[in-house]
């Protein structure tokens, strides 16, 4: 049981039925066959159940540093903040800066600083969510957005209990990210190509990035837009509206 809210946390579900066999030299071989991700996955499942009970849609944003995650959030809040109550958990190695940018928009936000760790994990989100609920407005949100630590590698391995994992690549980064960092794309449900207002200045073929990503993960949904100019942004906003509608109707 979690101290903060009494929600179920399933962290003690491991199995004690190992097979034993004796070898020479008095050593014992024990068969374990347990995933090292098991503890995180159990916590992630418990987070997801908790989010469902509260009817909150949860997104996990993954990208390299500087691809526009925080800017995407700022523009999203400007456009639909009055119809959908948004809350944000920011992950960074150091500083409160991103959470301050979001709070300046009048939206509850907390900052998790990992102090050097390259990713967020499910237990950090569990604690972070309780902290967020204590913020003004944090107790009545429809959509929780988790902005992961800027890194296309490590965050892809850790389930946080999100409903949808979103991977972002901005135009200046180049279209070959899916081929170079496959796990971020195979584990996501949505791929956002951002900063498309810069397409005239960079050698970036949207069709190529799309094709590379879909060859790794045929079920991936792909959108491209510029949050700054608003071009193509409506598709993203409609997507969020639909997710919130679905979660409320569950």
């Amino acid at each position, binding site marked *: 049981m979690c101290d903060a809210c009494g929600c179920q946390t399933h962290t003690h579900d491991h199995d004690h039925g190992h097979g034993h066999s004796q070898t020479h030299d008095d*050593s014992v*071989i*024990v068969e*374990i066959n*347990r995933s*090292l991700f098991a503890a995180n996955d159990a916590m992630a499942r418990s987070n997801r159940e908790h989010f469902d009970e509260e009817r909150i849609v949860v997104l996990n944003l993954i990208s390299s540093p500087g691809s526009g995650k925080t800017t995407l959030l700022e523009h999203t809040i400007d456009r639909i903040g009055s119809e959908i109550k948004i809350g944000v958990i920011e992950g960074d190695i150091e500083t409160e800066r991103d959470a301050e940018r979001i709070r300046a928009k009048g939206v509850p936000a907390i900052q998790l600083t990992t102090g050097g760790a390259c*990713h967020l994990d499910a237990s950090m989100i569990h604690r972070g969510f309780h902290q967020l609920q204590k913020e003004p407005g944090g107790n009545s949100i429809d959509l929780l957005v988790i902005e992961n630590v800027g890194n296309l590698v490590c965050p*892809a391995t850790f389930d946080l209990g999100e409903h949808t994992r979103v991977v972002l690549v901005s135009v200046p980064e180049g279209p070959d990210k899916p081929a170079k960092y496959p796990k971020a794309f195979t584990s996501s449900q949505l791929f956002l190509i951002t900063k498309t207002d810069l397409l005239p200045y960079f050698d970036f073929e949207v069709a190529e990035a799309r094709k590379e990503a879909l*060859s790794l993960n045929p079920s991936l949904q792909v959108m491209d837009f510029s949050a700054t100019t608003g071009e193509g942004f409506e598709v993203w906003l409609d997507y969020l509206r639909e997710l919130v509608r679905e979660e409320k109707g569950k």
Partner: protein
Amino acid sequence: MHEMSLVQGLLQQLRELASEHNTSRILKVTMVIGPLSGVVVDSFKFGFEVLTRQDELVQDAELEIVIPEVGYRCSACQNLQKTAGERPHQCAACGDTLLIAEEGNDLILQQVEME
């Protein structure tokens, strides 16, 4: 470098196992690292080497790593292609390019040998 924190999780499990089995020395640890687990084998080995140095229980433990094959299922003809190497570009049976990976995602503590 999330491998370091994964090795810390492994050491925690090993300590629990050791106290469960009443042993003070672990001789060998066998891990299965899926090629699609997002875990870099060399970084995992390095993390194991560094973190076991500080702990008597595992100081002399040998780390064995097993890398399983990944099965790629063709979304057109359902043919299953198994490989331990790079992701195939197309289906060997029908040539379709939409292949879906099955398994290969996990990181498993398979076996522990202890005194």
